C-alpha cells in the first residue's frame, strides 16, 4: 500500500535517486546532495517544530509499504520570498478611453511584482513514473491540503503553486523569446539555471521595471500567457479542484500560471471532517446519505511530527470511521484515535 508521510533524515539517499529522474523544468528538486541534504534537514526541523513557522518547509514522501520504496515527493514551503525576492508578472487591465473619439480600448498589462512575497507555496511534486496510475497522483498532490486543514494556524492566508509554463518544440519558450530574451540576451535554460541557483540579482538589474502592455508582445508570446506545459495540465486540474485559481500572476520567464487560494476557502478547510476510528452507531449508519459505495477518502492522522496519510474506502459517518486494521497501522493509529478525512473527489452543489 501507499502511505504519504513526513520525510525523515534517512530518506535523503532515496530522495537523491528520485531527483535524478526529475529532469529539467523543476528548479526545486535537482540531484544535488548538498542542496537536498539542506532541504531534508529543514523539513525534519519543520515537522519537529524546532524552527519558526515562516522558515519551515514541510516535505512529504509517498512510500510503497510493500517494498519500502519511495514512490513520490511533494512539499509545502511556509513562506516564499523572505530571503530572496520572489518575482512574478501580474496581469492587469488598463482602459484607454476617449469620449471625444468614442474609442474604448481595454489593454492587458504586465507588472513586475513581488506581490506573492510571504505566501505559502505548494511545490516539488514528483511522482515516479512506475506509480503514475490510479489515484496515486491525486493522493500525492492532495495530501498537502489535508495537512493544511489539520494545522491551519501554521500558514499564511495566501497559498500559491507555480505551474510550469508552456514550451514549444525543444523546450523553446515563446514568452521568453518575445520578452525576456531582449533584456537578458541569453538562452532560456541558462536563465532558468541561474534562478535555480538563487542568483536573482540579475533580475533586478536587467528586467524592464516599467509596466508593459501585452499588446507589444508577438502573438505567439501573448498566446501562452498563463498557459501550462501540456504535461502539467492534470496537476493544474487537481489543484483547481481544491479551490486554487489562476488570479493573473505568471512566471516572469515562461509566463506559466501561479494558482492561488485563500487558505480559509480551500475545500479541505470547508469540507474535511474529523472522525474517531471505530464503528458508527446503527442509527447513524441508517441515516447516512446513500453515496457510491466505493468513494475513496483521504485519511490522515493528526500528528504533526509523524504526519501520515493514505487513501481509504472507509466512509466517515457522523463522526466515526470504520478504518481497517491495516490502514490504522499505516497511520500509526488505533481505535478511538481521531483522524481527518476528506473525500478524494469534489462533490459540487447540485442546486446551482
Amino acid at each position, binding site marked *: 500500500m501507499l502511505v504519504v508521510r513526513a520525510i525523515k533524515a534517512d530518506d535523503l539517499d532515496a530522495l537523491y535517486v528520485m531527483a535524478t529522474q526529475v529532469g529539467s523544468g523543476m528548479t526545486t528538486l535537482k540531484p544535488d546532495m548538498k542542496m537536498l541534504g539542506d532541504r531534508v534537514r529543514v523539513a525534519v526541523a519543520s515537522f519537529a517544530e524546532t524552527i519558526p513557522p515562516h522558515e519551515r518547509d514541510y516535505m512529504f514522501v509517498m512510500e510503497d509499504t510493500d517494498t519500502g520504496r519511495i514512490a513520490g515527493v511533494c512539499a509545502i514551503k511556509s513562506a516564499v520570498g523572505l530571503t530572496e525576492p520572489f518575482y512574478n508578472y501580474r496581469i492587469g487591465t*488598463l482602459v*484607454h*478611453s*476617449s469620449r*471625444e*473619439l468614442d*474609442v474604448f*480600448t481595454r*489593454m492587458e*498589462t504586465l507588472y513586475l511584482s513581488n506581490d506573492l512575497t510571504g505566501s505559502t507555496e505548494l511545490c516539488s511534486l514528483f511522482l515516479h513514473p512506475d506509480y503514475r496510475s490510479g489515484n496515486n497522483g491525486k493522493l500525492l498532490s492532495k495530501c498537502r491540503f489535508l495537512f493544511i486543514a489539520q494545522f491551519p494556524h501554521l500558514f499564511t492566508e495566501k497559498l500559491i503553486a507555480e505551474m510550469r509554463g508552456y514550451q514549444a518544440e525543444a523546450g523553446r519558450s515563446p514568452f521568453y523569446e*518575445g*520578452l525576456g530574451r*531582449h*533584456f*537578458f*540576451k*541569453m538562452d532560456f535554460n541558462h536563465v532558468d539555471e*541561474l534562478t535555480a541557483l538563487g*542568483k536573482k*540579482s*540579475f533580475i533586478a*538589474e*536587467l528586467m*524592464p521595471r*516599467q*509596466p*508593459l*502592455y501585452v*499588446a*507589444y*508582445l508577438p502573438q505567439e508570446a501573448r498566446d501562452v500567457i498563463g498557459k501550462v506545459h501540456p504535461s502539467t495540465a492534470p496537476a493544474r486540474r487537481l489543484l483547481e479542484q481544491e479551490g486554487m485559481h489562476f488570479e493573473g500572476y505568471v512566471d516572469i520567464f515562461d509566463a506559466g500560471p501561479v494558482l492561488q487560494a485563500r487558505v480559509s476557502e480551500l475545500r479541505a478547510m470547508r469540507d474535511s471532517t474529523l472522525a474517531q476510528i471505530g464503528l458508527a452507531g446503527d442509527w447513524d449508519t441508517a441515516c447516512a446519505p446513500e453515496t457510491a459505495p466505493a468513494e475513496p477518502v483521504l485519511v490522515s492522522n493528526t500528528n504533526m511530527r509523524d504526519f501520515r496519510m493514505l487513501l481509504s474506502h472507509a466512509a466517515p459517518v457522523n463522526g466515526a470511521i470504520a478504518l481497517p486494521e491495516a490502514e490504522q497501522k499505516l497511520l500509526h493509529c488505533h481505535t478511538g484515535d481521531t483522524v481527518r478525512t476528506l473525500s478524494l473527489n469534489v462533490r459540487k452543489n447540485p442546486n446551482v
Partner: protein
Amino acid sequence: MYVVRPVEIADIAALEALAAVTMPGVHTLPKTREKIAALVERSIASFAAHVDMPSEESYLFVLESLADHTILGTASIYAAAGSNGTYFSFRNDVIQQVSRDLNISHSVHALTLCSELTGYSQLSTFYVDPSMCDAPEAALLSRARLLFAVLAPQRFADRFFVPLAGITDAQGGSPFWDALGRKFFQMDFLDAERVIGGARNRTLIVELMPHYPVYVPLLPGDAQAAMGQIHPSGELAFNLLTAEGFEADDYIDIFDGGPILQAHKHALRTFTGALQRRVATCPAEPDRNREPPVAYAIATGADQHFRAVVMACAPLESLAVVALPVAVQAALQVTDGDTVVCVRL
C-alpha cells in the same frame, strides 16, 4: 529677386494652389480654402499683435518672386507649442543595463510620452516649389522664421523644435503607428491624423496613448526602423535644419515616429551668427579687390513689416555697415541708415 514676407489676405488663392500639391501627413497646409483663410487671418493678427510673452501666435511666411509676384513657398512658426494644452512627444530614453555577475552590459531604448516640448517655439509648415529646391531662397524661407525670432525675440521661446513627417507607405500607412498608436486608437494612421487634425496637444492623447515607457526592443523591426526616419518629402527641410544646428536624437513624433529636431537658440547659427548692420547704399561700382562675395540672408522688421532676401556681398564681420543695392533696399523696404540683420546662408 525673391522676398520672404508675412502672408497677406491676397495670398490665399496662391496658398490654395500650393496646398493642392503638398504631401499628405502632418504639418502641411490645410486642404480647404476656409482653413487656409483662417490660418492667414491668424497670422496677420499675430504679426500685428504686441507680444510680451509668446502664446497662441502663429506666423505664416511666403516666398514671393518680385518679378511676377508669384508665391513659390510658405513656412510657418508657432510662438509656443501646445499653448492651449500640452505638446506631447516621445522622449528617446536610453537605459543602461549592467550586470557584473553575468558580465552583461548593454543599453535599452525606451520611448516615454512626455510634454517637455510644451512652450517651445515650433517651426511648422514648410513647402517650396520644386523649381526652387536648390536655390538659396529655399534656405532663406526656412531661416526667415528664425531671423524673425532674432528680430523679435520677445515673440518666441528660447528653444525651438521642428517635427518632420515620418515615413509612410504607398497606402499612407505608418509602420510605427501600426506598432503603437493603432493598438490604442483602433484606427488607421490617416484616420487618426484626420480626427486629431494633426495636433499633438489634445486631451485625447493623454487618454489614449500609453502611460508607460515603450521598450523599443519589443517593437517589430519595421517600426523600430521607422523611428526617427523622415518622409522623403522632408529631406530638404531636414538638411537645412541640421545645418542650422538643430539636433535630431532626443524626441520623436508620437504618431508616425518621425524625428523632432530641437535646439536652444544659442545653438542655432541664425542666432549665433546674426550681425546687426547699418544700411548704406551700394556704390555703383563694387570694390573688385575685396574678398570673394558670400551669400547672406538679410532681414528687417519685428512685425508685419518683416522682410528677408538673399544677397551676395563681401564678408560683413569686420564692417559696421552693409551696402545694399537700391533694388534690395526696395525689397526690404529699408533705406540708408536703417538697421538690418545679416546671416551667412
